[in-house]
C-alpha cells in the first residue's frame, strides 16, 4: 500500500469520527453499514429484502443508497475511504474489485467461504475476479447474461417466423424477414453506452468466443486485428442499421411498447429486461427469451455479476455484521430470493430453478450458463465493466459507441481506433 493511503487511514482513524460505543457487558449485535447504487426499482427492492433478512437474524442494517449511477456510488465510496471511514460492505464488481482492494484494507473471507463450501459452486472465471491476490475479499451475488435475445411475439408473427435463431446467420435472416413483414425496426435499442457495447460484444463473442477472450479480455494484439473482430464490427454495423436512428441517448426502456406491439422486433439485452418488461405492465407471453446468437450453435454467455466487497473495520459489531452478511450472501435461499426479485440467476450452480418463482427466461439463462461454462464459452462482458477496469473499458466503449452512432466509420477504422484506445489507456 502506498504512503498516502496508510497516512490517510491513520489520520482518519485518529480523527474525529466517533465509533459507536458498545458496553462490554452486552453481546455484540451485528451491524452493517452498506453503500450501493441500488436506490430504486427491482434492485432497490432486492437489497431492501436482503436487509430485512439481515435484521431478522438480529442485525442492525444501515444501508446508504447513493442515487445516480455507478460513478456517484464510487465517488461516495472513495470519499468515505479517503475519510478513513469505509463502509463495512459496499457494492463493487469485476476487475474494479482488484483495483480498489489496493487502496484500502479488505477482509479475508477465506474461512467463511470454506465453511460454506462456496468455492465449489461458483464458476471458476467468476471466482477469480473476487479473489485478487488469492484470497476471497468479495462475494458475487447475482449473475446476468448481457447477450440474451428477446423476441417480440407479434413481430415474429409479422415475419411469419417459427424458428428461434441460433447463429448470427439465422438472426440476420430473421431480421430481414421482420423488415419485409412490416416491422419498422427489427432491433429495439437504447442509445446508452453500455447498450452499444452490448451489441458489439454479443456479435464478437457470438462469432468466436475464443477470439473474444483473446482480444477483448486478454488484449492480444493479433486477435484485436484479426478477421473475427472485423466480422464482429460488420455485424454490429448491420445491427445499427436495423435500429431506430431517433433514439438519442435514451435507455432501451423507452421502446418497450413498440417492442411488445411488434413495431420493433428483437432486443439484445441482459436478463434484467424481463423484470423491466413485467414492471412496465407487459406480460410474459408478449415475448420469448432465448440465448443470444452463437455461430457454433452452443450458447455463449457474456457474464455480468454484481458483488459485495468487505472493507476492514475494527469495530466488533461491524465485524460481526460482515460475518452475518457474508453468510447470507452465500446462502442458496437468499440468492433465490434475490434473483427472483431482480430477474437474475443465482451465482451458485447448485440452485434448483424449477420452482414456481422462476421464469422460463431465468431457466434458459441458467441452462445456458451451465452449458457455456462446460464448453469454455462463458466470457466476461466488456460493456458492463467485467472484462477490465473502468478506465480501459470506457476508452474502448468510446470507440464502439462512436462506431454505432456514426455510420461513416468503417470497421477498419474502428479496429485501428480500438487498438489506439487500448494503448492510450494503459
Amino acid at each position, binding site marked *: 500500500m502506498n504512503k*498516502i*493511503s496508510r497516512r490517510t487511514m491513520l489520520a482518519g482513524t485518529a480523527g474525529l469520527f466517533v465509533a459507536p460505543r458498545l458496553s462490554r457487558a452486552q453481546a455484540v449485535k451485528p451491524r452493517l453499514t452498506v453503500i450501493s447504487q441500488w436506490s430504486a426499482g427491482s434492485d432497490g427492492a432486492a437489497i431492501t429484502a436482503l436487509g430485512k433478512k439481515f435484521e431478522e437474524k438480529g442485525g442492525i442494517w444501515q444501508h446508504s443508497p447513493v442515487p445516480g449511477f455507478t460513478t456517484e456510488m464510487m465517488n461516495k465510496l472513495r470519499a468515505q475511504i479517503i475519510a478513513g471511514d469505509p463502509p463495512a460492505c459496499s457494492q463493487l464488481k469485476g476487475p474494479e474489485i482488484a*483495483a480498489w482492494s489496493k487502496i484500502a484494507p479488505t477482509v479475508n473471507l477465506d474461512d467463511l467461504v470454506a465453511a460454506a463450501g462456496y468455492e465449489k459452486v461458483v464458476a471458476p472465471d467468476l471466482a477469480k475476479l473476487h479473489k485478487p491476490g488469492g484470497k476471497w475479499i468479495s462475494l458475487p451475488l447475482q449473475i446476468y447474461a448481457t447477450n440474451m435475445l428477446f423476441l417480440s411475439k407479434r413481430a415474429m408473427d409479422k415475419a411469419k417466423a417459427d424458428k428461434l435463431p441460433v447463429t448470427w446467420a439465422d438472426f440476420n435472416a430473421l431480421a430481414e424477414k421482420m423488415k419485409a413483414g412490416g416491422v419498422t425496426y427489427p432491433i429495439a435499442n437504447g442509445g446508452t453506452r453500455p447498450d452499444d457495447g452490448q451489441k458489439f460484444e454479443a456479435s464478437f463473442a457470438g462469432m468466436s468466443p475464443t477470439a473474444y477472450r483473446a482480444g477483448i479480455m486478454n488484449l492480444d494484439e493479433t486477435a484485436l486485428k484479426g478477421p473475427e473482430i472485423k466480422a464482429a464490427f460488420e455485424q454490429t454495423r448491420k445491427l445499427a442499421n436495423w435500429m431506430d436512428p*431517433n433514439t438519442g441517448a435514451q435507455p432501451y426502456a423507452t421502446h418497450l411498447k413498440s417492442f411488445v406491439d411488434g413495431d420493433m422486433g428483437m432486443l439484445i439485452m441482459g436478463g434484467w429486461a424481463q423484470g423491466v418488461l413485467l414492471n412496465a405492465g407487459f406480460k410474459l407471453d408478449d415475448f420469448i427469451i432465448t440465448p443470444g446468437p452463437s455461430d457454433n450453435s452452443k450458447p455463449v454467455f457474456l457474464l455480468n455479476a454484481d458483488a459485495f466487497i468487505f472493507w476492514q473495520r475494527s469495530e466488533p459489531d461491524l465485524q460481526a455484521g460482515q460475518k452475518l452478511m457474508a453468510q447470507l450472501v452465500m446462502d442458496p435461499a437468499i440468492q433465490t430470493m434475490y434473483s427472483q426479485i431482480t430477474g437474475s440467476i443465482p451465482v451458485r450452480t447448485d440452485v434448483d430453478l424449477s420452482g414456481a418463482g422462476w421464469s422460463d427466461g431465468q431457466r434458459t439463462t441458467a441452462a445456458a450458463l451451465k452449458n457455456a461454462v462446460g464448453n469454455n464459452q462463458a466470457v466476461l462482458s466488456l460493456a458492463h465493466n467485467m472484462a477490465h477496469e473502468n478506465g480501459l473499458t470506457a476508452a474502448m466503449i*468510446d470507440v464502439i459507441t462512436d462506431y454505432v*452512432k456514426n455510420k461513416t466509420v468503417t470497421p477498419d477504422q474502428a479496429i485501428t481506433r480500438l487498438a489506439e484506445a487500448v494503448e492510450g489507456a494503459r
Partner: protein
Amino acid sequence: MTDAVAAAARPGRPATSGVIRRLPEYLIIWVPLLLSAGHLVSFALWTIWISFTPSTLVPVSGWVGLRNYTAVMATRNWKIAFDNLLLFGSAFVLLSLLTGLALAILIDQRIRGENVLRSIFLYPLAVSFVVTGTVWSWLLNPGIGIQKLVNDLGWTSFRFDWLVNGDMAIWTIVIAAVWQSSGFAMALFLAGLRSVDADLVKAAQIDGAGPIRMYRRVILPTLWPITVTVVVIQLQFAISTFDLVRALTNGGPGIATQLPALVVYDLMFQRGVLGRGAAAAVMMLLILLAVLLPYAAWRYLQRRRATHA
C-alpha cells in the same frame, strides 16, 4: 466615538492598541476573504500537483512528468471536446447575449404584462441543469418531440433531428443552454437600458434621431460594460457546464458532444484515473485563462489610461 477618533489622532500613540481595538473588524474582513482565497488557491495548486502524479483511484504521490497531459491530449475524446468547447463557447455566449439583448429591448418597449414576461424569461434560471437537460432531450428528440409534433400537424417532411446527428448535436446543447441563461442576460441588459442617461436620450431626440440611430449612438454604447459582465458570466457557464450536457446528450451521439468538463469528470471519477483527470482540469483552466488574461490586461490598460488622462 469622539474619544476613539481623538485618541487615534493623537501623535505618537502606539499602533498595537489601535489594532486590538479594530480586531473584530479585521477578523470579519479577512477571515472570510482568506478562507475563500485560500481554498481557491490551495485547491487549484492541489489539482496541479495531482496532474503530475500517477494517481488513479485515490491521490498518491509520485512524479510522471507530462505523461498525463500527453496521454489526455492524444485521445480523440479530448480533441473532440476541445473543438466542441470553442464552437459551443462562442456560439452560446454570442447567442445568449443577442437573445438577452433582444428580449430586453422587446420588454423595454413599454408593453403590457411586463412583470409576467419578465418572470417567463427568468424562470429557467430557477430550474436545475439536470431537469433542463432531461426535458430538452425529450423536446429535441425527433421521435417524440418537436419534429414529431410538426409532422403530426401535417408537415410530414419537417426534420429536426439534430439531437441524433453527430454533426449537429452540439447545437442542441446551445439551444438548451441559451434557453436556460438568456434570462440572466436579459435582466442585466434591462437594468442597463433603464439606466441610460435620460438627458442623452432627450438630446438625441432633439437632434432628430430615429429609434435605430438612438440605439446605435446612445443606448448600445451605455450597455457596453454590462455586455462585458454578461460575457464573463456566460463564459464561466459555458466552460463548466456539465450537468446539462450529461442529462441532454451524455456526450453523444457516440462521443460527438464531448466537452472538457465532461471529460474531466469522466476521467477523475468514472474511469478512476485521477492524474489524467487533473491534467485535463488544468488544461481546462488554461483555456479559461487564455480568455481571461487578455480581458484583465485590457481592463488594466483602461484603468491606467483613465488615471493618466
